[in-house]
């Protein structure tokens, strides 16, 4: 992609990661990699966010938190699973308190491999997420337009019924 048409805002949640991927996510925002120059902002509010970065796998305690954050985000939204733990639970797969990758809780659009995922890989994942976001935006727009037409038809039909009665 030669240019970015949208500056996505990001929300980051640490599932049960070891911090390795979390500090790499933060490292993306700091001067060495500096994605903030493209307008990418790490926001704390799910309602402001376009892209949901999840590090670490889900467990019984945090599965509801992950779902809640996802549901609070406005559509269109993209989920990027950062690191091998978020993809498949990785080294902790056999731990008793691990349910599995993030896709056990919410639909995931982009998987970023690595333990810990490198900042370059995370940035690449977010850029991939952008094209998914664009597709989702288009389909959402069509869906909304169809809904509007349908709502209009319904209104018209109701009006005719009223007049008939």
């Amino acid at each position, binding site marked *: 992609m030669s240019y970015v048409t949208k500056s996505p805002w990001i*929300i*980051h*949640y*640490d*599932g*049960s*990661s*070891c*911090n*390795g*991927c*979390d*500090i*790499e*996510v*933060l*490292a993306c925002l*700091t*001067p*060495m990699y500096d994605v903030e120059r493209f307008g990418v902002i*790490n*926001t*704390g509010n*799910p309602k402001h966010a376009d892209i949901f970065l999840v590090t*670490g*796998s889900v*467990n019984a*305690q*945090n599965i509801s*938190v992950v779902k809640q*954050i996802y549901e609070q985000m406005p559509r269109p939204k993209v989920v990027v699973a950062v690191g091998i733990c978020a993809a498949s639970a990785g*080294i*902790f797969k*056999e*731990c*008793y*308190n*691990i349910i599995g990758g993030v896709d056990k809780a919410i639909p995931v659009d982009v998987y970023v491999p690595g*333990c*810990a995922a*490198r900042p370059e890989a995370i940035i690449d994942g977010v850029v991939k997420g952008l094209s998914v976001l664009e597709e989702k935006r288009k389909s959402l727009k069509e869906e909304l337009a169809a809904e509007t037409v349908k709502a209009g038809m319904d209104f018209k039909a109701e009006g005719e019924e009223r007049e008939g009665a």
Partner: protein
Amino acid sequence: MSKRTVIPFGPQHPVLPEPVHLDLVIEDEKVVEAVPSIGFVHRGLEKLVEKREFPEMVYVIERICGICSFGHGWGYCRSVEGNMSIEIPDRAQFLRTIWHELSRIHSHLMWLGLLADAFGFESLFMHCWRVRETILDIFEETTGGRVIFSVCKVGGVRRDIDGEELKRIVDILAKLKDEIKKLADVFFDDYSVRNRLCGVGYLSKEDAKELCAVGPMARASGIRQDMRLDGHGAYPYLDFEPVLEEGGDSYARCKVRIREVFQSIELIAKAVKRIPVGEISAPVKGNPSGEFIARMEQPRGEAYYYSKGSGSKFLARMRVRTPTNMNIPAMVKTLQGCDLADVPMLILTIDPCISCTER
């Protein structure tokens, strides 16, 4: 008396990348009580000793935490080596010490940045993290990894650093020292920084003792406690005195960590001067069968590693107690009576590592 309100804090919140939940009981703007609840990142990795052979377990233990990962690996290796009475070559001890001290520098710089972010000084945050990248580059050159490097193994280390590279590291650190000095001046002298740190979150020496605070938290309240003094690794050859401050407030804790960064740079220079030539790992024969406790000074304080062998390739039990676990009571104490607006910063002053705590 005004009305009491309970404000939930976390688990997802902008201050810390990690999930921690606190119920803050508020009276007007003052925090009366803070009730922490943890368990969002619990994985249960201690139980994995039953499924992983003891040399493989190092990889799992290193992933307790991605910030002090090397120290965890070393602590585990020490406890297993003690269990099997393996003598580690001196060069390996020095190399481990160098990597551990580099980890301390990177961890403290990271913390300084997060602290600056917590009190709203974003450019200072960026500068701390910019400087920290230099350390990560050294890690990458010497081990291949930026945050988790799996270079420590039972019996020694996997990679050697040659003499020229060691000299180069010392040169880089000497240059870095000037940059860190500039940052330190801001933390020490800036009016607005001092305004946020001085006198905030006071922890007396008695309280620190009573609540079993460890690491920089204890040292900032004047307790001389540093596990590096117990004579492991190359520390006996690098005569040093732990950094102590008497203030007990957030400013003192910040000061301890900044001074420790400079101390670590000195320790690395000393270690490079005195490193002997020789083997970097000892052969490992047989299986662990006894019990052994190793204590390490992590960037956040004392960590404790217990291993119990079963005579087979699988350990019978492995237990890790981490510094944040010990510092949470002290954190709750400092939160009582503070302003609501200071809560994020006070949580940060213990340098919490939740994934260590919950494992």
